[in-house]
């Protein structure tokens, strides 16, 4: 009887192990596949020409595969989204965690969750119909589809992750810290910014990194608002991100062509970016536990 019980235990253990390995297997499979299919084009084009070439013309008679504009655009776009999105998200989190009355908090939290659940294509659609014409009219430029539009859309898209993760971090700050600060005569606002926020800083940093990860990997929404011309990034210029470069040309690229291989190489670059961001995220999360 006891033996049988152990057998069942072991069997279940085995099943769970296999299920866990499926995830690991997927990650490995994707990594290996991307590396294998991404390396040949980089070698053929040349590392310097590929990473620092300023012109992308994949279907021209004399094709050129320089992804420097895409890399810069992805970095600028993400940085811009962080600059716009983090202050808003962070302040919202402080307000929700410390100041907001419970009813208000419930409403705002529900709205944030809803924002997180909106599919990116809907962001793109609203951006295309409202934001792009709006930017054109407000800034008196010929066309609103630009890096600026993409930054605004991305900033809104990263708000939920920033708010939720910072909120959790702020709420985990022991009440004693704040009580001590208040007892020493600090005002509530002083307490929040001098005591609570520093105590939660690694959690907040994790929130920012999570936002970066979300922003750099987004394709659908920005494909609809950024214009997709492979220009060097300028605020009101039509630009193409790493993600959109892959997404927009993949469907027509012929199998085995250098164009398709180069698209895989772009995906590999993007993958490396995201690995870096994940490493940073793990670093911050580890710190917040200590």
């Amino acid at each position, binding site marked *: 009887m006891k033996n049988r019980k152990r057998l069942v235990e072991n069997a279940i253990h085995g099943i769970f192990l296999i299920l866990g390995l499926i995830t690991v297997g997927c990650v490995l499979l994707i990594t290996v596949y991307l590396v294998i299919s991404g390396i040949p084009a980089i070698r053929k084009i040349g590392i310097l020409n590929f990473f620092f070439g300023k012109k992308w013309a994949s279907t021209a*008679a004399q094709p050129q595969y320089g992804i420097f504009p895409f890399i810069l655009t992805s970095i600028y776009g993400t940085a811009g989204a962080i600059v716009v999105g983090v202050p808003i998200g962070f302040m919202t989190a402080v307000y929700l965690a410390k100041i907001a009355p419970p009813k208000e908090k419930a409403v705002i939290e529900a709205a944030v969750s809803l924002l997180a659940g909106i599919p990116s294509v809907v962001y793109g659609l609203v951006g*295309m119909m409202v934001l792009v014409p709006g930017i054109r009219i407000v800034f008196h430029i*010929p*066309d609103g589809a630009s890096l600026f539009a993409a930054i605004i859309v991305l900033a809104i898209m990263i708000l939920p992750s920033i708010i939720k993760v910072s909120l959790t971090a702020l709420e985990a700050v022991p009440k004693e810290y704040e009580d001590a600060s208040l007892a020493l005569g600090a005002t509530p606002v002083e307490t929040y910014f001098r005591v609570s926020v520093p105590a939660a800083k690694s959690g907040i940093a994790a929130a920012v990194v999570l936002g970066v990860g979300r922003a750099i990997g987004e394709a659908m929404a920005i494909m*609809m608002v950024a214009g*997709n011309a492979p220009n060097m990034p300028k605020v009101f210029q039509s630009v193409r991100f790493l993600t959109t470069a892959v997404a927009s*040309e993949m469907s*027509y690229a012929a199998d085995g062509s250098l164009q398709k291989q180069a698209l895989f190489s772009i995906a590999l670059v993007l993958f490396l970016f995201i690995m870096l961001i994940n490493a940073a995220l793990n670093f911050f999360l580890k710190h917040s536990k200590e």
Partner: protein
Amino acid sequence: MKKIITFITIVSLVFAAMAGCGKKDSGTVSTDGSTSMEKVIGALGEAFEENNSGVTFTYNPTGSGSGITAVAEGRCDIGLSSRNLKDEEKAQGLNETVLALDGIAVIVNPDNPVNDLDLETIGKIYMGEITNWKDIGGEDLEIVLIGREAGSGTRDGFESIMGTEDACKYRQELTSTGDVITTVASNPAAIGYASLASVKETVKALLVGGIAPTEETVKDGSYVVQRPFVLVTKSSAKLSETAQKFFDYITSPEANEIISSAGAVPVN
């Protein structure tokens, strides 16, 4: 127990479905060529497969040039080309049959006062030589060029008709006809192009050289922003029975409705 039975049922169904795929008892039709013809030939192939069970239809989107080479070398039954055959290609013993015509409408915002441009002017606009609508009878607005992504059949068609291959200074490169139409509809300074069949009232299709783009003007050739969808066959070798059946089917009036709904103008 119930779950196990469900599981076994699903597995056996999957295997049964796979077994069904493996059967190829009565012939195949292989086509190869123009990516622009994907929609038309895909719809026709689907309909043909539906009407003739067991027949397999394949389409390899490689581009017009590769399609013509493939049929010349006997690697496929029917080559697909979105341009007419050159004389030297005909001299190799290839036959061309026009399946349909693809009209491309040049579209602007309905608020734009410009109604009529000639081919040369449109080419100049897309090359960035004319940059303001006021130079061609419009308002004082910078022209915003909307196009499709690299590799798109419509872009390829438009640029080859205009003679502006790889030279267009696009402001936006969008990935679908719908996006192009939406964008042009929302920007008074925009100009774009889209397959004739998908143009809606939210945008205005320009007259080109005084001719409005309609199915009739495309068919009689007076509307010039158009190109043929050509079936290429070898005159020396006979088509297989199934391929001949497919060829006859798609060039018959029966197929017209499918061709129209796939966005091209049928000619047969």
